[in-house]
């Protein structure tokens, strides 16, 4: 912005303007002198991105198959091998706060991570508040993101009222991912991308 001040209003608009109109122009003139100059858009912002990026679709057929397989492995671990998921024996190693996105600014959550067991399976507990109950058949999904794309499902959960707690076991190496994300899936909205509700960066 230039150091040179703008000319007086009378000089800007000329003489012979009715007083009533001039009074109105003075108020606008004062506002323009109060606010900073609007920035020029650089070339890279001259237009919105050609395709505004949306969250990656979670349930492509291939991913759904992978999720089913993953759930089967989790079930086997949970029921067959007696992992320490759930119960009072949860041993927390890290806690990661999650922030609500603009979709749910009042929502928040904490992801509590235990130590991985000898097989590399790590207990994960999600404690969330402020999430809205979804319509029948709807559910939330906790997943891992890499390079702004879906990279792995940790589990799904539903919400009634108040605080929600859900627990799973995951075998991912968390250092390989960028962020935790919770998104919402609503029945009948299969074609739409799932909105992101909660997010947290992964940093080690």
């Amino acid at each position, binding site marked *: 912005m230039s150091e040179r001040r703008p000319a007086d209003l009378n000089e800007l608009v000329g003489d012979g303007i009715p007083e009533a109109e001039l009074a109105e122009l003075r108020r606008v003139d004062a506002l323009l002198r109060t606010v900073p100059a609007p920035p020029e858009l650089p070339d890279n912002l001259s237009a*919105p991105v050609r395709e505004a990026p949306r969250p990656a679709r979670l349930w492509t057929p291939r991913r759904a198959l992978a999720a089913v397989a993953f759930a089967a492995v989790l079930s086997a671990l949970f029921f067959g091998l007696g992992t320490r998921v759930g119960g009072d024996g949860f041993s927390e190693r890290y806690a990661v706060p999650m922030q609500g996105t603009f979709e749910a600014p009042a929502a928040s959550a904490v992801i509590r991570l235990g130590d991985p067991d000898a097989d590399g399976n790590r207990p994960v507990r999600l404690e969330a508040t402020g999430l809205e109950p979804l319509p029948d058949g709807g559910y939330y999904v906790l997943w891992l993101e890499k390079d702004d794309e879906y990279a792995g499902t940790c589990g799904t959960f539903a919400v009634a009222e108040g605080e929600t707690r859900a627990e799973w076991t995951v075998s991912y190496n968390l250092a390989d991912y960028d962020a935790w994300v919770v998104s919402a899936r609503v029945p009948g909205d299969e074609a739409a991308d799932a909105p992101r509700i909660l997010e947290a960066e992964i940093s080690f």
Partner: protein
Amino acid sequence: MALLAMATEDDAALIQRTGLGDRDAFEELYRRFARPVLGMAIRQLGDNGRAEDATQETFTAIWRSARSYKPERGSASAWLYAVARHAIIDRARQRVEPAAEAPDEASRDIGPDEHAELSWLAWRVHSALQRLPERERAVLELAYWSGLSQSEIASYLDVPLGTVKTRTRAGLARLAGLLEEVRR
């Protein structure tokens, strides 16, 4: 008042059409609000690169969440302002590193309430400016922020001095209508 009401309705309609996947409506929203968003991001983040990222993220957020906009809960401009503010705050939280440029010095001399008020005022003025005909917007921006005199503006735009004054008067009058709510 009528102009303000029309502007509000128009923005609301654009958001709703964007929520239905209307790309043209989204691009019109971008045309109207990209500069106000970038201005706010620069003031908050103090770094042009991060501000540009935040601007892109704001419009990504608008594209994603336009379906959730409820006109009965508030004005379109306030909703867009809130989305932008969230995106900028998210960007501010993402990395803690020295800013490439110092943030707006003036903003450090005022309290948080005044800063918020100035931010909102700048948002309204900048977005209202985007609603003006190009020839009126150009003369106002040159008159108030370029440091050029009226004669220099006339020379720069290659129009008579009287035309510059006429356009300035018309632009200010149109802005007065668009900013009715701000003046209160």
